[in-house]
């Protein structure tokens, strides 16, 4: 046991490493208070959130090269986590900005004060999840982000679909987190610890019942799979994405997924990696269960089902929801390789996915502001009524398909090369076939925008110059990262380093 002095020293050190998260908590509290005090002001909490995120970004930047644990091995700071936290932070900023331009939020809900407050809360949950190395913290972090997101999904109370989405979300969420902690309890019983590092040490030293281990990990996977919306834990995704306000849909599809992937990767690497001295980039897994194959199956299911079902959808948000399931599949494909090249490619993919997906949802929001609909048939001729939106949407969609020279192509390139490198050529073939299938429904969107209703005499869409500036904030990186991806690849490769507690 630690002595008191040591304990205080450890605490001091931990708090100094916990500054980004602390900044988020303070921003959360400030936003809560400001919202109580200035009920009238429209976006005050939104600006608070932005400032809070910027401060968090500052502390995160100062941590750039740190690798350590805090709070007696409960929390880890490493390059991998920091990359994911940047993805989460940037998408949080993006989502707050998108929210400013989403009329639905201001028209269909009673004030947006709590809205931005809850976004900060959700961001805090994700930050915690990315760095957690203890099953208690994992559970608490998942619940922190989930509880905020349940409310956010149904935030536009006057929209019938929103409350329906919210209900479905909370039921599926509660069930899957229930299953997850049941798995955690079994893992706890098997190994006698809740700390991932200790579980790893225990598994390395002692044989355990394979079936029980498999069962518990599958159950835990249901919790993570729910967050990343991988098949078969995806049932909530389309409904929630369709019903929730657009910025929240975007947030769930990027940040929430990033946090889920972060913990999935960390959990697998930290728990099941057999430490091979000198060769860290190839993971040797403990036990006799073929986790590669289990994850690969999840990947194939997610890709195929997501893409095939998306073909029949008529609502753009729903199409993007199924596409996000499919994208989870592509990333799981890289996870299934279980090596550092796979981790790096997931990171690269996430960064690209963040930019293009936020952009696509933002266009959906801007269009909904004008025409009040997300149905694909209402998109007819929009390419001529709103040329800039049309061009940017096309760019985002071809990027989601994975065609060069866009960011999405670089993501796919790295994912496929990680998979080919690990020798799973069959998986890569399934992946590329899927990206051809995905073309069908992405094309459907810009086909309606450009090929239908060409000579429409309907009025042009209106949008403020500021909203176009924000659009370019997403569109330019989508193109730029497709051509000059040197730095992002370097950073991701440097960040593929998951701290192993030694």
């Amino acid at each position: 046991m630690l002595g008191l002095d040591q304990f205080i020293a450890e605490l001091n050190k931990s708090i100094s490493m916990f500054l980004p998260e602390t900044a988020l908590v303070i921003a959360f509290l400030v936003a809560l208070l400001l919202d109580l005090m200035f009920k009238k002001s429209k976006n005050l909490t939104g600006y608070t959130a932005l400032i809070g995120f910027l401060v968090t970004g500052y502390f995160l930047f100062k941590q750039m090269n740190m690798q350590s644990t805090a709070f007696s091995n409960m929390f880890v700071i490493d390059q991998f986590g920091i990359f994911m936290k940047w993805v989460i932070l940037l998408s949080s900023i993006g989502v707050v900005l998108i929210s400013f331009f989403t009329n639905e939020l201001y028209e269909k809900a009673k004030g947006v004060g709590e809205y931005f407050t809850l976004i900060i809360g959700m961001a805090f949950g994700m930050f915690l999840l990315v760095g957690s190395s203890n099953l208690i913290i994992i559970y608490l972090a998942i619940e922190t982000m989930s509880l905020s997101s349940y409310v956010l999904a149904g935030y536009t109370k006057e929209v019938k679909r929103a409350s329906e989405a919210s209900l479905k979300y909370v039921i599926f969420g509660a069930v899957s987190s229930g299953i997850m902690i049941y798995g955690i309890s079994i893992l706890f019983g098997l190994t006698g610890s809740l700390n991932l590092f200790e579980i790893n040490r225990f598994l390395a030293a002692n044989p355990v019942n394979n079936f029980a281990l498999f069962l518990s990990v599958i159950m835990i996977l249901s919790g993570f799979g729910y967050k990343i919306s991988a098949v078969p834990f995806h049932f909530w995704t389309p409904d929630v994405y369709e019903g929730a306000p657009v910025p929240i849909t975007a947030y769930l599809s990027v940040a929430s997924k990033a946090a889920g992937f972060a913990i999935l990767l960390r959990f697998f690497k930290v728990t099941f990696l057999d430490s091979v001295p000198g060769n860290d980039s190839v993971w040797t897994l403990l036990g006799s269960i073929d986790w590669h194959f289990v994850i690969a199956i999840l990947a194939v299911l997610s890709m195929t089902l997501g893409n095939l079902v998306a073909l029949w959808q008529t609502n753009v948000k729903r199409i993007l929801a199924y596409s996000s399931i499919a994208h989870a599949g592509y990333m799981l494909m890289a996870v299934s390789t279980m090596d550092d090249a796979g981790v790096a490619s997931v990171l690269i993919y996430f960064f690209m996915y963040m930019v293009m997906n936020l952009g696509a949802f933002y266009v959906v929001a801007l269009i909904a502001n004008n025409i009040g609909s997300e149905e694909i048939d209402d998109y007819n001729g929009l390419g001529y009524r709103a040329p800039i939106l049309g061009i940017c949407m096309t760019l985002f969609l071809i990027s989601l398909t994975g065609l060069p020279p866009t960011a999405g192509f670089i993501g796919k390139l790295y994912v496929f090369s990680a998979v080919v490198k690990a020798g799973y050529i069959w998986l890569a073939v399934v992946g590329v076939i899927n990206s051809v299938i995905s073309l069908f429904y992405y094309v459907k969107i810009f086909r309606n925008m450009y090929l239908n209703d060409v000579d429409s005499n309907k009025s042009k869409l209106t949008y403020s110059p500021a909203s176009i500036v924000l659009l370019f904030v997403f569109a330019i990186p989508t193109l730029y990262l497709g051509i000059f991806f040197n730095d992002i690849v370097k950073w991701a490769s440097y960040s593929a380093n998951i701290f192993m507690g030694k």
Partner: protein
Amino acid sequence: MQGSIGFPILTWITFLPILGMLIVWLIPSGKDEETKKRSNMLIRWTSVGITFIQLILAVIIFLNYNNGMTGVNQQSGFQFIEKFTWIKASLPLIGNIHIEYFMGIDGISAPMVLLTAIICFVAVFPSFGIEKAVKGYFAMYLLLDTGMMGVFNSLDFFLFYVFWELMLLPMYFLIGIWGGPRKEYAAIKFFIYTLVGSVFMLLVMIGLYLSVGSFNMLDMMNPANFASDSIFGGFNTSIRYVAFIALFIGFAIKVPSVPFHTWLPDAHVEAPTPISVILAGVLLKMGTYGMLRIAFPIFPDAVGYFQGLIAWIGMISIVYGAFCALGQFKIGKRDLKKLIAYSSVSHMGYVMLGMASMRPEGIVGAIFQMFNHGIITAMLFMIVGVLYDRAHTRGLDEFGGMANKMPVYTGIMTIAFFAAIGLPGMSGFISEAMVFLGAFNTYPMLTMVSGLGIILGAAYMLWALQKVFFGQIPERWQGPWDPTGKKYKHDDINGRELTALIPLAVIVIFLGIMPNPIIDMMSASVNHFVEFMRPFVKIGGHLSGM
């Protein structure tokens, strides 16, 4: 000094259209009818200007081209080289990455660059007829131009792939927005077919990269660069065969060879005239070019293994395409444009056959055939476009006696049709003769069967000529095309259309009499190519070099 001119000419020729696209973009579209008209004219003439400068650059390349240099797999043999590091990072965890901006041309690509510049220039003129969303049309047109030019210039696989995919989207929109009644179907079919081919190409590219450690095509052609334990290391492994097949299919879809050709008739029939011209004139060549540039030299062992199959595919394409074209005379489906589309399948079959021969004359013939077919089919499609613009139909049996109504037009058309048949004195004859000469040495039986294609070709072309131009003028075409005289003052072909057609006709006849300027460009490279492939492939007859 020949072979380079101290000016990044390949970059300019490739990216000039993108510059043009931006200019077109910035031209304000007018508010009322009058200013709208003016801005449309400005956009059109900007495109003419841009493509004309591109053509001049291509001519400069042609004049400065050093015929003696080889290329293919030696960097020193390439000309107008531009090589910069684009992406370079050494990454301990996921392996190094090195992508170059590497452009250069040799005898295989130089004729194609020239062809692309010519076709893109002449196809602007029929584009003047486009009235719908003019700005978008020319923006897409110029983007397509960049994509095609880039494919022929790049020597880095990654760069190649980027350009290869870059054309897809503009092509989709050009067919989909400005096409005929079934444009959506044709556009998506084109898109999907090409994408299926190219995603497998992507996997092969990744595999090659992991084996070689570079995206440089020339590095990939050197077996010594393959790590022995890598995916594509060694020779004659089944994975190499599979990879070759994947690449081959990716390119064959573009060619298109039977059985991957079904997108072509749809795309051609639905596409607007200038896009048909580009499609037939340049896009199809990218398939065969890709084989010569990438698939064959990187997997020479697999070429040796599948050589017979490639020749068979060539032969089947020739005969099958010709029969399909003849099928257009069946009652109920008589479409002149479809006839020409199928004749393209047939003519690209000669290219495949010539390449499969692996003899210098066969391959020179194949490349020359690519060039000639580009020019001739461009003419044919433009000619059909001229008629379609006036009559709004392409039905073969709806016409007759046009020779009386449009004498000049008939003259041009006769040149194009005779060139397509392969009449001596026209460029098509020389290339087809060379292909047969080469192929006969290696695959005598197949070549003899392929000869059937020439006879059938003559049959359907002459038949079509006779149907449209001779005999009685049908009742409905007796009067002038345009009684108001607003759009067409005379019944015959107009000046703008002649501007596009006459240079092509001149090229066809000139190269029919004097093929040397083009053939000399490629012979050194092709000889080197054959030398390089020789240890792996079957070469019939006695090889003496050219």
